[in-house]
C-alpha cells in the first residue's frame, strides 16, 4: 500500500498543477476523491488502457463530474492518456473539459450535471456481468434521481453494481448538515435494500476490504473523506470548493505534497 500512498501524492501534484495553471475550481472535491480513484485503478477495476473500449471490462462512472481534474490525472497515471495532455486541462481547443467529457480514453460517461451517473450505471449493469462502479458526491445525493435509481438497483438484483459516496461533508454552499442533512445516510441506503459499508475514504486497507467484500446485494461504500485532503490549509474548508491557489499557496501545497 505504500506504493499507493506515493502514487496518491503524485496524482494530487498533477491536480494541483492543473488547477493552479488554469485557475479552475473544485480542487477540494478532487483531493477528497483521489484515494478512491487511485485504488480503483490500481487494484479493483478490470480495465486495459491498451483497449479501453474492450467489451468485457469493468465500468467506472464518475458521476461527480466537477472533480474532472482528479479523474484526468488518475487516467494519466494509469496510462489511459499521456501526461503531457494534462497541461491542456480547461484550455481552449483541448479535450479535457472542466467537467468530465467522454471523448477521452477510459471515460465511460460525460458528467457534470449531478444525479445522472447512477441511472446510466443501472442500465449498464443490466447488460453486463462485469462490475459497474459509480462515484457520487455527497451533495449529489440531494438529487431525486439518485433515489429513483437507489430503488431500482436492488429491485432488479444488480449485485454487480457498487456505489461509492465521496462523503466529504461539504457541498457548494456550506456544510452538508447545514444545507440539507443526509443523515442517517447509511440507514437510508440500508432501508433501500443495499449492502452498506462505511470506511475511511483515505485508508487503502479499508477501501480494499470494502471493494472486495462479497455480497448478493448492490453495494454502497460510504467513504468518509476530507475535502481538500492532503493540503493542510485546504482541508475541511468550504472556500476550496471554488478557489484556486495563488503562487504562495501553490508553493506551500507543493511542499506539503513532497513530504
Amino acid at each position, binding site marked *: 500500500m505504500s506504493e499507493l500512498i506515493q502514487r496518491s501524492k503524485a496524482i494530487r501534484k498533477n491536480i494541483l498543477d492543473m488547477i493552479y495553471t488554469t485557475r479552475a475550481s473544485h480542487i477540494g472535491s478532487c483531493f477528497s476523491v483521489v484515494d478512491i480513484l487511485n485504488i480503483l485503478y490500481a487494484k479493483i477495476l478490470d480495465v486495459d488502457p491498451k483497449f479501453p473500449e474492450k467489451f468485457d471490462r469493468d465500468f467506472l462512472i464518475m458521476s461527480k463530474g466537477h472533480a474532472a481534474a482528479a479523474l484526468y490525472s488518475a487516467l494519466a497515471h494509469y496510462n489511459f492518456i499521456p501526461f503531457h495532455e494534462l497541461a491542456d486541462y480547461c484550455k481552449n481547443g483541448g479535450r479535457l473539459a472542466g467537467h468530465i467529457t*467522454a471523448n477521452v480514453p477510459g471515460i*465511460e*460517461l*460525460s*458528467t*457534470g*450535471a449531478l*444525479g*445522472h451517473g*447512477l*441511472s*446510466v*450505471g*443501472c*442500465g*449498464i*449493469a*443490466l*447488460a*453486463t456481468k462485469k462490475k459497474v462502479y459509480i462515484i457520487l458526491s455527497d451533495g449529489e445525493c440531494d438529487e*431525486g*434521481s439518485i433515489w*429513483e*435509481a437507489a*430503488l*431500482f438497483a436492488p429491485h*432488479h438484483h444488480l449485485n454487480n453494481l457498487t456505489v461509492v459516496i465521496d462523503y466529504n461533508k461539504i457541498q457548494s454552499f456550506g456544510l452538508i448538515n447545514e444545507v440539507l442533512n443526509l443523515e442517517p445516510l447509511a440507514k437510508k441506503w440500508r432501508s433501500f435494500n443495499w449492502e452498506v459499508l462505511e470506511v475511511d475514504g483515505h485508508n487503502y486497507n479499508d477501501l480494499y476490504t470494502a471493494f472486495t467484500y462479497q455480497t448478493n446485494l448492490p453495494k454502497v461504500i460510504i467513504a468518509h473523506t476530507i475535502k481538500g485532503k492532503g493540503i493542510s490549509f485546504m482541508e475541511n474548508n468550504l472556500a476550496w470548493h471554488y478557489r484556486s491557489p495563488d503562487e504562495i499557496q501553490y508553493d506551500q501545497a507543493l511542499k506539503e505534497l513532497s513530504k
Partner: protein
Amino acid sequence: MRNRFIQLLCNRAREDETIYLLTADLGFSVLEPFAQEFPKRFINVGIAEQNMIGIAAGLSLMGKTVFVYSIVNFGTIRCLEQIRNDVCYHNANVIVTIVGAGLAYGLNGYTHLGVEDLAVMLPLPKMKVLSPADNYELEACMGYLKKNSGPSYLRLAKGGEPSIHSDSFDIEDSFKSDVASDINIICHGTVLFEAMKTKQLLKENYNLIVGVFSIPLLKPFPTCNCLNLLRHSKYIFLIEEHMKYGGMSSLVTSIATSLGPDCPHIYTYALDEKIVHLVGDQTYLRSSFGLNAEHLLESILSDLSITAKLEV
C-alpha cells in the same frame, strides 16, 4: 395508433435481439404483447422518468436499442436533462416514444396536454423528431427509425384515430404527398384529419383547390422540399396541435424568411401561449381553439379575403 406501434415494435424485436422496451409504469393494456413475448427485454422502471432515460442510455451504451414509453410531458419535459446529456450527448440509441401528443388527452387537464414538447425536443442535437398522423405514417416512421439509429422522438396520439392515407406513405418525400396549389396547408400529427376535411369543404363549397401536406418527419426537416413548395405558393397555412412557438410553425416560418420577396403569405393556426383551463376531449378542444375543420375553413377564408383586400 398505440396498438399499431406495439405490433410494429414486436415485429422488429423478433428480428433484432437488441430491442428493449422501458416504461415508467404507463401503457397498461397497450404494452402487454411486447411484455409477454419478450419479458427479458421489457422493464417497467416504476414512476421514475429520469431514471428510465438514464437506464435506457446505459443499455444503449452496451449495444441495445431502447424504446422508452410514457405520456408526452413525463417522457420529455420531466426528464429533459437526461435526454440532453445521457442520450443526445452520447448519441445513444434511445427512442423516446410518447402518447398524448397535442390535445389527445384533453379530458385529463393541462398536465396531460402535449403542446410544448416540440419546442424542447426539436433543438436537441442529434435528435430526430417524428410525428405521424395515422397508422400508415406510423409504419413509415418505424421503418425510418429502423434505418436511422441514434436519439429519436416518436410523438404518438392515442388510440382509435382514423386512417387518412389509403396506402403506404413515403416519409422522406412528404412534400410530394399531394398536388400543390396556390394555397397549401402544411401540418403534422392527427390534426391532418381536420386539414383534409377543410380541403374538402373548400372544394365543395367554394371551389377552392388547396394542397395538404402532412410532414411526419419534423427533424431532419425536408427543408429544400419545403422551400420549393413555399416558393410556388401564394398562401401557406400552418396547422398544428402545439403552441405557436417552438414547433413546426416556427420551423417553417424561419425557413421561409430566406425566400425574401418570393415568400408567400403564411398564417399559423396553433395554440396561443396560454394555460389551457378548458376541460374537454380532443374534438371539443380543437373546436375551442379553432383547429377543427369548420373553424379552419372560416379562418382560411377570412385570412384569404383580408390579404386579397390589402393587395388591391
